[in-house]
């Protein structure tokens, strides 16, 4: 066991030190790293509307895995994701994404972002939307049909977005995040409001993308989605309550059901 862990640790250290050569070595140890990290957040503080929404947040997201960002509504999931993709004003702290500070222009080619509310043009068809986002990202035109397939919307390709259901619109929005074949996907509640079959298919697609080496950060306020993830980050009131694999979270809480496990962990924090 020791050898494998050490190798991973070393990789993490090399990755980290190559980012910030001046950082003292003891800074590395507390970080919950299991592999090279695609996202490293440190002492992040964000204020929205005068209120501190994220305070002294530190976390990392492993490369090539599906990391679930879970937490009740209002816990700061969207705010954190906005900061990671570089559209949120940050008060202090650092966010390193794929080795560069969040918001660096070159990252816009490598990070796919699905906003919580579908951000697509309602007066265009599904394909027209995808072609536009694809053009901006200089993606090959064949990607349009590929991502349509992934989100199971091929038969609605020529439908105007305004005439789609909420769940279908969300899938178009997801497709726009996938179209540039980004290394890192930041998906804000991609499965909310979808039926169970579709949800299962999408999680399968996310796991396949991770198997291809992509990194996914997927938020949800529905705890039973946690089992689809390799790693979990549980957020409450802008603070990280717990991290770990689903199995580790179960062990920590002593509960088999992840829903209950989170309730236990969240309430522990309160006390």
């Amino acid at each position: 066991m020791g050898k494998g862990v050490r190798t991973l640790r070393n990789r993490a250290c090399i990755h980290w030190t190559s980012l910030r050569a001046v950082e003292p070595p003891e800074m590395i140890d507390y970080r919950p790293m299991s592999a090279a990290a695609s996202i490293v957040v440190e002492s992040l503080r964000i204020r929205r509307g005068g209120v501190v929404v994220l305070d002294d947040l530190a976390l990392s997201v492993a490369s090539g895995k599906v990391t679930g960002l879970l937490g009740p509504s209002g816990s700061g999931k969207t705010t954190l994701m906005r900061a990671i993709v570089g559209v949120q004003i940050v008060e202090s702290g650092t966010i390193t994404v794929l080795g560069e500070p969040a918001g660096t222009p070159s990252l816009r080619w490598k990070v796919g972002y699905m906003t919580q509310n579908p951000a697509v043009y309602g007066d265009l068809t599904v394909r027209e939307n995808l072609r536009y986002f694809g053009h901006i990202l200089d993606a090959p035109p064949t990607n349009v049909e590929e991502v349509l397939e992934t989100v199971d919307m091929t038969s609605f390709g020529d439908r105007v977005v305004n005439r789609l259901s909420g769940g279908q619109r969300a899938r178009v929005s997801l497709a726009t995040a996938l179209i540039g074949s980004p290394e890192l996907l930041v998906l804000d509640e991609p499965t909310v409001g979808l039926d169970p079959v579709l949800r299962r298919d999408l999680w399968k697609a996310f796991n396949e993308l991770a198997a291809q080496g992509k990194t996914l950060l997927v938020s949800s306020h529905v705890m039973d989605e946690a089992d689809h993830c390799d790693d979990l980050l549980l957020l409450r009131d802008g603070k990280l309550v717990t991290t770990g694999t689903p199995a580790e979270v179960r062990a920590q809480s002593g509960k088999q059901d992840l829903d209950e496990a989170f309730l236990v962990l969240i309430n522990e924090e309160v006390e």
Partner: protein
Amino acid sequence: MSFRATFATALRVLKQLRRDPRTIALLLLVPVVLIVLLDQLFHDRRQVFQQIGGPLLGMFPLIAMFLVTSITMLRERVSGTLERLMALPLAKLDVLAGYAIAFAIVAAVQATLVSIVAFGFLGLHTQGPSWAVVLLAISNAVLGMSLGLFVSAFARTEFQAIQFMPAFIFPQILLCGLFTPRAQMAGWLRGVSDALPFTYAYDALHRATALGTFDGRFTLDLTVTVGVTVLALALGASTLRRRTG
């Protein structure tokens, strides 16, 4: 700034417009109907029609594009697509230039159509060449677009955006010299008029249609029109924020 992203944006804006045939019909037909109305209104006073017909023709696109742009841009801000674009490899200038190209094309069609009707069927006559009026109409459309883009940052709802029309556009129409020659205005009104971009847009049109004099003052008019367009675009660009709170 990338040609590909700019072009894609222009194409996207045009496609959005195409999905809205009613707006296209309004954009293209309303100026024609108005110029016909003007023709009928001044049936017995042809010199009035000749005097205001040309300038009005060149001002339609300015007003239309101001409205269309401020609403379209507001929708982009409110619907979250702007936030989405800001997370993509797309310069702010790509967005602005994309809009400018798309609406300049619409303005060209609009101005050409109303010119054909006015010059071809209603006997409107200008001293300068009629294509100069069409070109001025297009440059005015881009001015209207850039002003619309800028003011869209100050509206939260489409209702508010529409109210910018009477607040922002009407005073300029009243003071530009179309209704009362600027020489007859009270001193302070003239001072205000001097500070408004429409005054120069109108004066250029007046020179091209009624006088046919492309002199130093005409050059000044054009310079001010283009200068204000660039300024409004720059201010508009500063209201497109990559990061928000």
